[in-house]
């Protein structure tokens, strides 16, 4: 202590802390690092992906001021001719943009059919790279590939690429490969004439890029143009195309960030409990420092400095870790964080110095917040009382928390009712945070009340455990807080995921009633089954009944992702019967064809049952009466189901791209699949599967998608447990003298350890029960607010009872083991020295 003057106080404190408890120090640092790493890597991966996607979109849109976009089947090319004659249009480029089905693989390839001469003006980078080879594009079978596409398809210049159009396979010839720098995503380029011919789209284009003469007011021109375009054709600002990509991943991103917040929250609690415990443990040394002349603020700053030092180390580690994780994710996984919604291959890690500093600062701030309260409390302690011993003030302080705790609970419950902000459940997250904080603030009060209920055994040794807990309620509350926070979040997540899984499972069962399913590669614009194909497939031996569907993308709102139109069920009654409807009305009398919208259309677009939905089909708006809302877990951006009859009547399109097959009993599905493939031209590219297999695979994919969530939650709980073990070992060490006395008066070693185990079980049972209750409350917010607002679909609440019970038992056991283990450590020193030890 005499060195206090020459060294900073905090350095002495910190070094002593480090020396005495390197393990706790390390775990606290690691928890903070995890939070920072998670947050920053999610951010970096996403920024890099969006950046990559943005660059790609920019390259594709090029220097256009306006993009005119139509549905997949486009609009008459005369629109392009008309626009070409419009004054103040300085350049325009017609495009036929299709997701082309490949004959020998399930993926699709985005192909742009364009006029190289016109594209050269608007997409100079891409056409400049092709250079004079663009003349070779005039060959009907010529296609130019981006290097990403060439790599994915394993094709070299001069080789053949087989595509499916209808159910026919056609060969294209790769005449060149774009450099990676020019366009990093997967893409094929063809001449627009060849594309129209090959993909059966003669006379039609679906996109026109326009540049206006200098001085033209782009916005008013675009608005004006918009009113003149046929239904379903939109004049968009290029920015909208990029923004749409951002929106698509927003919900997913926010959920990952939520996990990062959980880690940070846990980290803050860990700092809080670590610092609180260490302050308690050292209260006499700290009081001595005060007595020796260290001022209140010096002491407070010193203790705060300890917390900040933890924060700096953890955040540094976290930032570095975050970059490593982000780089690895970008290298080994896809940049869309595995959710398949953002196809941005080969995104390179984008350094974001400012944001890196921000994440570092967040980590440090979180540690600072965690350290602030214990530092302030310690500094407020009158040194005389602290020197004498006792912890009464903390108890008093803990009791005052209940008012703010209740207030936070009320606030949290209120926030949960608020609507999303910009499509994000921000208030939902705020509700979770408020509920957590409120629940934590209530821990001391509830602990005291709870212990009052603890049974009196009239065995003093047992009562001692309860009395000890009641007496040191602030200590217990501290160790409880970290486990309650992490456990309740885990419980909430588990309930949410379980509810989702059960609902998903039921949903799959409802949607997959047939024995077998077949479909063209999803998302493709070119492959389909003609009426003839459908008839042939339906009569394959072994098939009792066949039903076909047509799905296609329809853009209802230019600022949102396209929705999926599904034409299924021959009659409207069939359609209704086949769907997992949530609500519906009978519309038998309606002269207007009926439509069933998914919940996303209801939540995002605001449609209600009974409304008339205008769907642009075949260049006209077609009215559909909304007769029901169905649950669709497969299409995030929304879907609408109409009967095939209504669809065909509106479009004349009687093709299909999906089908359900019912087999005669005893028919072998493999044999049927083989025969089906032989029946149509592109049979090899057809996805054919049994409903059972698809069901299983869907659930597997579901589980895989949530595996990382579980892993992170388990880490959080382990960190929480570590917090409990620190508290236990710290308490045990602090009670060494007590144990020594008990040994003197004849208590057996195992009796003492048993007493500690009782305490551990009591504490953790309380924590687990509290965590279960809190978790259940949080899960309501997750299921009904955050899930609903993020994904716009409902799920049925279901509690995974057995896993939660098992988990609770494991946690209680682990806490008991921890208590025993720390008791052993405390008892390993001999009782003799313990009773002599004063501090």
């Amino acid at each position: 202590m005499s060195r206090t003057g020459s060294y900073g106080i905090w350095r002495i404190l910190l070094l002593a802390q480090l020396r005495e408890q390197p393990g706790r120090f390390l775990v606290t640092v690691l928890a903070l690092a995890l939070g920072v790493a998670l947050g920053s890597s999610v951010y970096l991966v996403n920024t890099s992906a969006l950046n990559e996607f943005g660059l790609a979109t920019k390259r594709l849109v090029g220097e256009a001021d306006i993009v005119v976009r139509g549905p997949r089947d486009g609009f008459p090319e005369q629109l392009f001719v008309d626009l070409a004659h419009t004054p103040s249009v300085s350049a325009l480029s017609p495009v036929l943009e299709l997701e082309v089905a490949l004959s020998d693989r399930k993926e699709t390839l985005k192909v742009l059919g364009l006029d190289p001469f016109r594209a050269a003006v608007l997409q100079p980078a891409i056409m400049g790279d092709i250079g004079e080879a663009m003349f070779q594009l005039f060959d009907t079978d010529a296609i130019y590939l981006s290097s990403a596409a060439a790599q994915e398809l394993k094709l070299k210049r001069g080789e053949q690429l087989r595509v499916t159009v209808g159910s026919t396979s056609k060969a294209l010839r790769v005449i060149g490969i774009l450099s990676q720098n020019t366009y990093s995503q997967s893409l094929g380029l063809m001449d627009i004439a060849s594309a129209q011919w090959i993909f059966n789209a003669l006379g039609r284009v679906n996109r026109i890029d326009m540049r206006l003469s200098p001085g033209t007011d782009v916005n008013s021109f675009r608005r004006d143009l918009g009113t003149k375009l046929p239904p379903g054709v939109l004049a968009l600002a290029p920015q909208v195309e990029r923004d749409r990509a951002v929106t698509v991943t927003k919900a997913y991103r926010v959920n990952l960030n939520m996990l990062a917040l959980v880690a940070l929250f846990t980290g803050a609690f860990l700092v809080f409990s670590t610092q609180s415990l260490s302050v308690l443990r050292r209260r006499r040394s700290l009081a001595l420092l005060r007595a020796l002349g260290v001022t209140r603020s010096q002491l407070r700053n010193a203790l705060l400095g300890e917390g900040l030092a933890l924060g700096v180390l953890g955040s540094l580690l976290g930032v570095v870790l975050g970059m490593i994780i982000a780089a690895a994710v970008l290298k080994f996984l896809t940049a869309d964080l595995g959710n398949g919604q953002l196809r941005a291959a080969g995104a390179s890690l984008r350094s974001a110095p400012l944001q890196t500093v921000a994440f570092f600062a967040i980590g440090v701030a979180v540690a600072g917040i965690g350290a602030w309260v214990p530092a302030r409390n310690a500094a407020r302690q009158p040194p005389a009382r602290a020197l004498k011993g006792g912890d009464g003030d903390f108890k008093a302080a803990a009791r005052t928390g209940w008012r703010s705790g209740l207030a936070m609970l009320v606030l949290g419950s209120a926030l949960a009712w608020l609507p999303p902000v910009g499509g994000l459940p921000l208030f939902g997250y705020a509700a979770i945070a408020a509920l957590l904080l409120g629940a934590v603030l209530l821990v001391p009060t509830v602990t005291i009340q709870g212990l009052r209920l603890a049974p009196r055994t009239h065995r003093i040794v047992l009562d001692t455990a309860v009395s000890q807990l009641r007496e040191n309620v602030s200590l217990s509350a501290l160790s409880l807080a970290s486990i309650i926070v992490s456990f309740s979040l885990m419980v909430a997540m588990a309930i949410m995921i379980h509810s989702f899984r059960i609902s998903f499972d039921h949903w799959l069962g409802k949607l997959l009633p047939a024995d077998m399913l077949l479909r063209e590669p999803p998302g493709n614009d070119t492959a389909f089954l003609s009426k003839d194909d459908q008839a042939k497939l339906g009569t394959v031996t072994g098939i009792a009944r066949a039903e076909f569907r047509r799905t296609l993308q329809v853009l209802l709102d230019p600022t949102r992702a396209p929705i999926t139109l599904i034409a299924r069920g021959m009659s409207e009654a069939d359609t209704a019967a086949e769907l997992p409807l949530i609500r519906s009305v009978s519309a038998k009398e309606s002269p207007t064809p009926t439509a069933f919208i998914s919940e996303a259309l209801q939540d995002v677009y605001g449609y209600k049952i009974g409304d008339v939905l205008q769907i642009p089909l075949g260049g006209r708006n077609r009215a559909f009466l909304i007769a029901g809302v169905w649950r669709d877990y497969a299409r995030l951006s929304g879907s609408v189901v109409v009967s095939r009859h209504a669809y065909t009547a509106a479009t004349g399109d009687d093709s299909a791209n999906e089908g359900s097959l019912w087999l005669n009993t005893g028919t072998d599905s493999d044999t049927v699949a083989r025969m089906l493939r032989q029946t149509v031209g592109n049979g090899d590219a057809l996805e054919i599967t049994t409903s059972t297999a698809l069901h299983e695979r869907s659930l597997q994919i579901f589980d895989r998608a949530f595996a990382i969530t579980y892993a992170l939650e388990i880490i959080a709980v382990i960190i929480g447990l570590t917090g409990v073990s620190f508290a236990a070992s710290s308490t045990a060490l602090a009670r060494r003298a007590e144990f020594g006395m008990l040994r003197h008066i004849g208590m057996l070693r195992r009796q003492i350890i048993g007493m500690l185990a009782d305490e551990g079980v009591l504490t953790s049972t309380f924590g687990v029960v509290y965590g279960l209750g809190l978790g259940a409350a949080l899960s309501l917010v997750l299921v009904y607010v955050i899930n609903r607002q993020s994904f716009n679909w409902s799920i049925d609440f279901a509690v995974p009872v057995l896993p939660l019970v098992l988990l609770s038992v494991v946690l209680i056991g682990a806490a008991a083991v921890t208590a025993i283990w720390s008791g052993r450590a405390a008892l390993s020193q001999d009782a003799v020295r313990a009773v002599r030890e004063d501090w």
Partner: protein
Amino acid sequence: MRPGGCLLAGYLLTRCLLTGCLLSGCLLAMPAAAGTQYAPVVPGHPFRFPADLGSHPEFRTEWWYVTGWLMTEQGESLGFQITFFRSKPDIDANNPSAFSPRQLLVAHCALSDPKRGRLWQDQRIRRAGLNLADAAEGDTNVWIDTWSLRHAGQSYAAKIDADGFSFDLMLAETQAALINGQGGVSRKGPQPEASSYYYSLPHMRVAGTLSRNTAKTRVTGEAWFDHEWSSEYLDPEATGWDWIGVNFNDGAALMAFRIRSLHGEPRWAGGTLRGADGDMRVLEPADVDFHAGRRWISPRTGIAYPVEWTVRAGSHEISLRPLLDDQENDTRLSTGAIYWEGAVQAYERNSIVGRGYLELTGYGERLKLR
């Protein structure tokens, strides 16, 4: 008039390169897979006007090429050039798409402006069709978007709305067509099949308006009009050529060209000379001599162009001096071609006897004929 024959394609290449150059790639890189049949240039088919004023889509290439001098109201002398090329690519003709590139059209225009010190120029390339670009048969009528060259009565209307400048000119015929070569078949190399159909309209009277940026002015002047079509490939021995078309003050007209071999020696030459009295003389290789005079080195590309010449063509021996030295067309960024083409004055014994246009190609790197 234009170096024809075996160099036709190559010639187009340079012109095309100068205009946008893309066509070259098209013509030369296009695989012959589709097996398009092109009409051959054969003697014994005298021109039938106005049908032959129009497009000949069965031939591989064709151009309408206007070069001349303009005088503004303020007395400025300017050179101008407006060219439309048509090219029939070797593609599958069965594609029913309206976008199918059955014909490609290229337009290039340039203005030689001594005040500016270098050219104004712009170019466009399009596939024919959808009424947005085409070359009509039956009479001269070619257009790309708002750029057009149309024949009506005794006049041609040229409308070009280019980047930074625009022309709206009427070109009136003052003389009968000058039929180049043997009955309109102009030979371009040692091989007899390297030929083109080629006629010129010298001494066209020009009147109209010219805009530079926002400044609009009335102009008058005199131009030289070429129309040439062929299906032949470029002579691989050629590295470049020199070409002139001169309107003499006395009403005479001269077209002369020389094709240089890989080593810079003359490989072929030819021309047509029509006297003021209307007396026609077809010039054989031996009748034409090009002697390079003063060189100008481009500050941008470092290429040395002989911008002054002495040309012997039949009975005439004229020296040529440029309106301005820097009439270099540099399209390396888009096409890779660099050449010189500009307005020149013709002198005989130190007095101005006429005005015309001079084209010099192949003075930089050898033309890339992929």
